């Protein structure tokens, strides 16, 4: 009996009834939708924050290796290693890079600064610099290059003097901006500055002789990415038991090492992004529980007419999913503009802030999960209710 009736009532009727039910308490439904939009939005942004953390590692290449002192990054490698590393089979180029760690105006205005050898840019095709600017930089010993994102942030122009207060290398250092490089695409981080390693070294020779002729890390270009493991072993074996043992890894692994340092912060952000979903799940469950309880008598009436428990459950699930669909959909739509706004305000911390396709998918999945979870208890309850009791119930 019930099955024939179910078939008789078309899907159109069912969805009409669901929609009417959802709109019965406009205020309540409206509030719930607002809550859902906020939750889905917050979840999306938090996921993107986590992604942004990994942006540096994502942009890093597998075809470049980084060799550093095995003790830790605080220790240097002798400049004499360069020639020996270049001799390893498979290594096509070796560039020097020292972390400068200077302060521009105040510690808050942090950005990365590297003293690099002239061939460094050859290893980074993702940094695009015009030929005249590159030549201008190479001609000026005190010249420096800044990335587009950094130049936009502090308004650096070619010809500007960029003063830095040294923390690792004492004194006030002045550089002249000779060029601005762009990223080859929007995922590349260009919020950094680089200047001549030779300038640093020559100054150290005069001021702190013991600290001269030292290299922070060597960046190695290799012929084929699949040779990375063999080259890594060959380089590290060469300096085994020397005064400065090396640790060589792919640039990506090197960058991931930095990300791993904030592991627990990332884990906390991930956890919290699910807490907001949990909060909205509770709110949504409450909405559905209240609606279903108020309609107990109606469900009993439907049952009296011959509709089965499945139909009642479908009504409740449908309503819950409809509300979550609207809320989740609006949340998804609001995510890109919200991310753009977030980037505008927090761009200093997150140079790359792009919502990924996976994040959109997860947002949608969360909305559906909330809709299903919120409907379970009321649906089971309503489909089980006995007609006589149901008819007796008052809201």
């Amino acid at each position, binding site marked *: 009996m019930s099955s024939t009736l179910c078939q008789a009532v078309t899907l159109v009727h069912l969805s009409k009834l669901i929609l009417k039910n959802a709109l019965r308490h406009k205020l309540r439904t409206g509030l719930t939708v*607002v*809550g859902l939009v906020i939750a889905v939005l917050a979840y999306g942004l*938090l996921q993107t924050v986590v992604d942004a953390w990994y942006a540096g590692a994502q942009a890093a290449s597998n075809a470049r290796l980084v060799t550093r002192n095995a003790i830790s990054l605080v220790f240097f490698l002798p400049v004499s290693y360069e020639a020996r590393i270049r001799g390893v089979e498979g290594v096509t180029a070796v560039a020097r890079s020292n972390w400068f760690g200077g302060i521009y105006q105040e510690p808050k205005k942090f950005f990365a600064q590297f003293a690099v050898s002239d061939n460094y840019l050859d290893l980074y095709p993702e940094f695009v610099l015009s030929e005249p600017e590159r030549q201008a930089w190479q001609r000026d010993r005190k010249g420096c290059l800044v990335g587009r994102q950094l130049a936009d942030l502090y308004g650096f122009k070619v010809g500007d003097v960029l003063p830095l207060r040294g*923390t690792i290398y004492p004194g006030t250092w002045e550089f002249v901006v000779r060029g601005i490089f762009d990223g080859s695409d929007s995922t590349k981080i260009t919020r950094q500055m680089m200047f001549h390693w030779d300038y640093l070294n020559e100054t150290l020779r005069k001021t702190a002789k013991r600290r001269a002729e030292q290299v922070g890390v060597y960046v190695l270009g290799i012929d084929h990415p699949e040779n990375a493991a063999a080259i890594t072993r060959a380089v590290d074996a060469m300096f085994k038991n020397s005064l400065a*043992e090396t640790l060589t890894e792919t640039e990506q692994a090197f960058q991931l*090492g930095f990300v*791993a340092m904030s592991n627990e912060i990332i884990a906390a952000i991930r956890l919290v992004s699910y807490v907001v979903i949990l909060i909205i799940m*509770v709110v949504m469950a409450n909405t559905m529980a209240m609606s279903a309880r108020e309609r107990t008598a109606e469900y009993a009436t439907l049952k009296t007419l011959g509709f089965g428990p499945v139909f009642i459950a479908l009504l409740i699930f449908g309503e819950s999913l409809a509300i979550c669909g609207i809320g989740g959909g609006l949340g998804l739509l609001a995510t890109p503009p919200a991310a753009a706004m977030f980037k505008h305000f927090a761009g200093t911390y997150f140079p790359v802030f792009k919502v990924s396709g996976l994040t959109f998918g997860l947002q949608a999945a969360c909305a559906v999960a909330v809709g299903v979870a919120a409907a379970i208890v009321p649906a089971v309850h309503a489909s089980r209710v006995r007609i006589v009791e149901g008819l007796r119930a008052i809201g």
Partner: protein
Amino acid sequence: MAKPAMSVPLSYIARNLWARRLTTTLTAGGLALVVFVFATVLMLDAGLKRTLITTGEYDNLVVIRKGAETEIQSGISRDQAGIIETHPAVAIGAGGARMASKETVVLISLLRRGDEKPSNVIIRGTTDMGFTLRPQVRLAAGRTFTPGTSEIVVGRSIAARFDNTAIGDRLYFAQRGWTVVGTFDAGGSGFDSEIWGDAEQLMQSFRRTAYSSIVARLADSALFERFKADIDTDPRLAQEMKREQVFYSDQSQALSTFINVLGLTLSAIFSIGAMIGAMITMYASVATRVGEIGTLRALGFRRRAVLGAYLLEAVLLGLVGGVAGLLLASLMQFASFSTTNFQTFADLSFGFILTPGIAVKTLIFAVAMAVAGGFLPAVRAARLNIVDALRAV
């Protein structure tokens, strides 16, 4: 008969919440989750602050090279160290020894247990005086390192989280094996996340000729300004000094700001969700009790009493959520948090600390969320017309 100015009994209000247990639980649950996030952030910041305040002694000074932000970046040559150490403002300890410890501080990469990526750990070369100057550092197990040997002692947080740091284990770095001979407890301070060894031995193996920092005790607290001025003006020196407490709290400024901004922004956004939950519940609570409200009004309760009753219901709801969230958050005191301090680049481990101030703030936050959500429904209840309300059922 009820007197006109009487307020609605509390038992009636509480029973309303009890009568709709499922809804009350769900709403309070939403509030509790937000409260949990809010309280946890405050507790984490309190933990960080306490760790760094206990790291410093008020009358201790840290001398580092001018411009260096941390001990890692700093350098003090032996002759400079001699000048600083013999300044009259440095206290004289037992046996006539100057109460100053010339230390070398570097980072080494160690593997955390169950993690394939290494973390940077501070290794501090120090002296016996280094222990005397920091009375909070006590040996928890084993013995202290013997000067002149490759022995090290590890802080409590290091021993708990890193591989090869139990007593008797050997760590290999700088071409030597270093034997762990003891574990120290630094009373929850930042030193718990450090490894200590003999300064001269570590300098030799790291091929360093300069110290990183000098920690000294002031003979008299009032001598601070003079000592500072002398160091600033001495042409042989390129160093600057800070009180130890200031030094360590400066070092955690960025991390503390980060935790606060991130945490409080999240709490603010999440609280909107919980407020909406409270609002939905309170609106429903009003809607299903229109008849009762009419009856109350007919009995002589004023509009203000009805408004008060609903607000009080919201306050109770907030308290239930707040207490639940706070209980949940208090469990976090058993957990500890560790991350790389952006400024020192070294791993720092700290706990979650629940203070009475945080508990009060959290409860106020919970009640505020519930009242903000319950205000409009309460106004609606108070504005109901008696006749309409009585007719509603």
